């Protein structure tokens, strides 16, 4: 086997690596720039949907409609979204985040105008176990908070019937406790945040 020249041994691999890196970065950043607007629009839309959901406003699954409804009835001041539900009164939506089992759980919590009941919750992000803790994304779990007020007691799945009881998820006790903790914090701190204290 002939001895490799200095160029083939030292310089060429460097140049090759440099070239292929530039090529790969060009491709990925090009695609990133190309889709950036769409990604931002998606995130924006998702946030709007979550706020509307927490406020208990139903919306069609349509990009333009959601934006229209949101712009019409929601006013954003600092961390608080004030939602004017017409005859349904006013709702305040405040984001709350707390630790979950695998990562933070971020919720949008909706308060009825009188600050004595919730209008619902929406989930911004969670990393719970798929099929177990991630069931907090299921509509029945989120909707159980509507009309309730804490501090909340956790009861077995499917048995909550008092206004301060919430269903836990079977097989996801840690996640259920995390949500309970966030919600208890929400009902104790939420009114002050909304009143701007």
């Amino acid at each position, binding site marked *: 086997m002939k001895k490799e020249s200095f160029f*083939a*041994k030292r310089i*060429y*691999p460097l140049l*090759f*690596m440099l070239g*292929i*890196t530039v090529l*790969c970065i060009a*491709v*990925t950043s090009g*695609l*990133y720039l190309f*889709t950036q607007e*769409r*990604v931002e629009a*998606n*995130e924006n839309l*998702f946030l709007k949907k979550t706020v509307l959901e927490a406020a208990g406003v139903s919306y069609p699954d349509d990009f333009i409609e959601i934006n229209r409804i949101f712009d019409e009835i929601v006013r954003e001041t600092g961390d608080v979204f004030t939602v004017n539900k017409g005859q349904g009164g006013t709702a305040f939506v405040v984001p709350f985040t707390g630790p979950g089992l695998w990562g933070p759980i971020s919720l949008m919590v909706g308060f009825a105008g009188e600050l004595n009941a919730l209008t619902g919750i929406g989930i911004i*992000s969670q*990393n719970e*176990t*798929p*099929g*177990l803790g991630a069931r907090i994304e299921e509509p029945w779990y989120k909707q159980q908070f509507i009309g309730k007020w804490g501090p909340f007691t956790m009861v077995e799945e499917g048995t909550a019937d008092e206004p301060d009881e919430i269903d836990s998820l*079977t*097989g996801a006790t840690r996640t259920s406790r995390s949500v309970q903790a966030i919600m208890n914090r929400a009902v104790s701190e939420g009114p002050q945040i909304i009143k701007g204290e």
Partner: protein
Amino acid sequence: MAKGLVKKTFIAPLGKDNPVFVQILGICSTLAVTNKLENTVVMTLGVMFTTALSSFTISIFRKLIPARIRMMVETLIIATFVIIVDIVLKAYMPDIWKQLGPYVGLIITNCIIMGRAEAFALNNKPGLSLIDGLASGLGYAYVLLIIAFFRELLGTGTLWGVQILGSWWTNWSIMIMPPGAFFMLAIFIWVVKEVFIKEESK
């Protein structure tokens, strides 16, 4: 290119050289993403896309890549395709992207892709490498789909999120937790080796 060779390249990863149940590669993601059929489909499509195109690209450059740094180059090319999958999902299928979370990025570490690049793409023509990559991805995909089918059905009584089993069914929560994946994969490998591969060797 001989027609027989193409056929052989395509068939091998589906059966006797299957990356999952024969070579036992890519187990990490096999265990992680098979508890919901929908996520599994998207994940396997991502892997198929990445294996096929990274094998193809590496094969194009195979005579130019210095042997000393070939692993770095392979990882870089694989990572590029994975990021493409990630960005496309994020832009066009945001809901599924959210559910898959970190697993899309982890396609980079899927040993099947690296394995095919090392074992096949470095020594074969681009066209054949593309077929090999695609077939390896397919071989991975169908195994995962079978496992996901049983895990979702037994674990939640649903398929593709639609309730299949009635209220009489008690969900086997263990099936959608990580241990369930080990059970299903082991049973699957056992059945395949006992029934199909044993017959072949006789």
